[in-house]
């Protein structure tokens, strides 16, 4: 088991290196000149040149990549003399558009994304598994038909549509909630909740749909297993059979997909954050694309990649705990 974890972690690092190479290649492939973007349209050529040298874009791409990679571990210094400044480790570069270290920018926006992801995740797991279980236990009855319908609708509706619809109806037409304006939960908790409740619900209800389907089908499949029949024949209570026999089996695929979905959300819920104007990492990424703010784009991509690769490792390890048959001896 230990060796298995070590091996998985090693490959995770290799994978992340590969991701960093490909994202960094953006600098070489895109026709935009990062130095020119750093000081607007009416920039003098000598300023552009000075900026290029200051930010290190005059060096060959491989050397630039090396400085980027080194910066993650030891931090990075820019410029010389009076204009010198530095981004401490782990440095993911410097945004010439926003005049800030990328790591600091991510540090500001990531908590918003994390709060959004955690809240939505908890809600959608409860709704998804709950509705799925009710459907499986009432197969063929109205509860089941309702749940199946909910799953079909939820899976097929896009976030931007439902998000806007909810925003318009709740905030503008019925005026139940004020227009969401994000505040840190440490500063103003009730404002935080008011701002987050709609994005949480929209994200949760839409994602819950596929979990409802997974739970329902997984449970129904498990209920037909011989070992569940043996559990009943032992004289066990229904509650015990459902938790130890049926859910235990149905949970395995759910854990796999939940891990990856959650990691994906941590990389930024681009659409939800944009619709509800939450200052999260997803909205920052999309703005970076529009502004050709390449360092920010590389930084957020790396952070998202780390979460997804890490989630894969964690899911693999959890899988071993959940199913003794895949445990590596």
């Amino acid at each position, binding site marked *: 088991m230990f060796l298995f974890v070590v091996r998985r972690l090693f490959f995770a690092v290799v994978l992340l290196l590969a991701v960093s190479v490909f994202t960094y290649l953006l600098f070489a492939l895109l026709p935009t000149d990062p130095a020119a973007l750093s000081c607007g349209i009416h920039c003098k050529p000598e300023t552009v040149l000075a900026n290029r040298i200051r930010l290190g874009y005059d060096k060959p791409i491989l050397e630039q990549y090396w400085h980027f990679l080194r910066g993650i571990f030891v931090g990075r210094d820019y410029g010389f003399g009076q204009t010198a400044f530095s981004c401490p480790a782990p440095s993911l570069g410097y945004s010439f558009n926003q005049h800030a270290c990328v790591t600091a920018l991510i540090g500001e926006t990531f908590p918003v994304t994390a709060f959004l992801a955690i809240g939505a995740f908890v809600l959608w797991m409860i709704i998804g598994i709950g509705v799925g279980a009710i459907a499986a236990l009432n197969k063929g009855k109205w509860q089941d038909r309702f749940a199946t319908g909910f799953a079909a609708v939820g899976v097929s509706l896009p976030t931007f549509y439902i998000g806007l619809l909810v925003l318009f109806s709740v905030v503008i037409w019925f005026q139940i909630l004020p227009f969401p304006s994000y505040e840190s939960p440490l500063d103003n908790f009730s404002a935080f909740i008011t701002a987050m409740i709609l994005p949480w619900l929209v994200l949760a209800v839409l994602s819950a749909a596929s979990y409802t389907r997974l739970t329902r089908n997984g449970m129904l499949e498990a209920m037909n297993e011989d*070992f569940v029949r043996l559990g009943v024949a032992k004289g*066990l209570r229904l509650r015990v059979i459902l938790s130890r026999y049926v859910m*235990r089996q149905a949970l395995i695929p759910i854990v796999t997909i939940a891990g990856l979905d959650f990691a994906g959300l941590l990389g930024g819920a681009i659409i939800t954050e944009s619709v509800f104007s939450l200052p999260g990492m997803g909205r920052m990424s999309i703005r970076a694309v529009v502004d050709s703010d390449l360092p920010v784009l590389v930084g957020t991509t790396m952070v998202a990649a780390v979460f997804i690769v890490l989630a894969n490792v964690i899911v693999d390890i959890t899988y071993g705990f959940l199913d003794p*048959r895949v445990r590596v001896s």
Partner: protein
Amino acid sequence: MSNTAAPVLSVQNLRVSFDTQDGTVRAVDDISFDVYAGETICIVGESGSGKSVMAGSIMRLNNSSTATTEGKILVNGIDVLTASEEEVRGIRGSEVAMIFQDPMSALNPYFTIGKQIAEAYVVHHPGASKREVHDVVLAMMIKVGIPSPEKRIDEYPHQFSGGMRQRIVIAIALVNNPKILIADEPTTALDVTVQAQILDLMMSLQKEFGMTIILITHDLGVVAEVAQDVIVMYAGHIVEQSHVDALFHSPTHPYSWGLLGSVASYGANKRGDLYTISGSPPSLISLPAGCAFHPRCVHSKGSGNACMTVQPKLRDVGTDGSRSACHLTDDVLISIGRGSDRS
């Protein structure tokens, strides 16, 4: 059958049907029989003749949302079919236990086998201490012949072979010393070499525990070896119920004649060909009128129209306690049954 004591299990007019999209499947249709303490009764019949459904209803294991069950099943004087969920749970595993056909899928893959045997014991002995449970589980594993049980108690089902898994299923079934053990084709999924071991184990444990065994099988060799009474089922009905010797020496139903004729070493004619029953079992959604077996029965022409219109009732035939559901007269049934060429 000449037993005067009360039966441990009494099945009375049991009917089980399932509602499907194609229509109502009458899996078990008006079955009655009694089982007495300590005996071994075999239920034989083709696949789809209702054996397993019938066995499942003794513990009320059939899916209640699609199955309709009528009649009475008395275990210890309690009617399993109308008892409360709590009462039925008290019977399951404690009074009546069950062994399933496929040991590869009958064990929970996510828990150690020690936990699974313990679980069966603890549910009916809620006050048992950990030490006691552990000892009971180990003793049970030794009884069913699992080598080095101290080591294997913490292993998972996938680490055991099919035969060993069936031994564990037997351990789970017997850990509460049940009065009745239902074995639903317990050897069908096993290697031929292991089949005999598992049967021997069941028979020796029956002597030790003194339980009644209801063995569902389509292996007539097994029937000849272990049964006292035999019930032959066809399309949800009992067509013959006899003592095992009577069944093999003078079967009293045309379907039994066909079954016995299709066994190698038993029914081969002088050229060595085996007898086959022509046709295939009827659909349980639309059974033929009259005797369900008549379209495949070579004797159905001999008794007028009764076979096509009237469903035969199970009745005593001869003096050896055999019961048969056939319109042929007793004399004909006995003389053909005793003959060497029944087909």
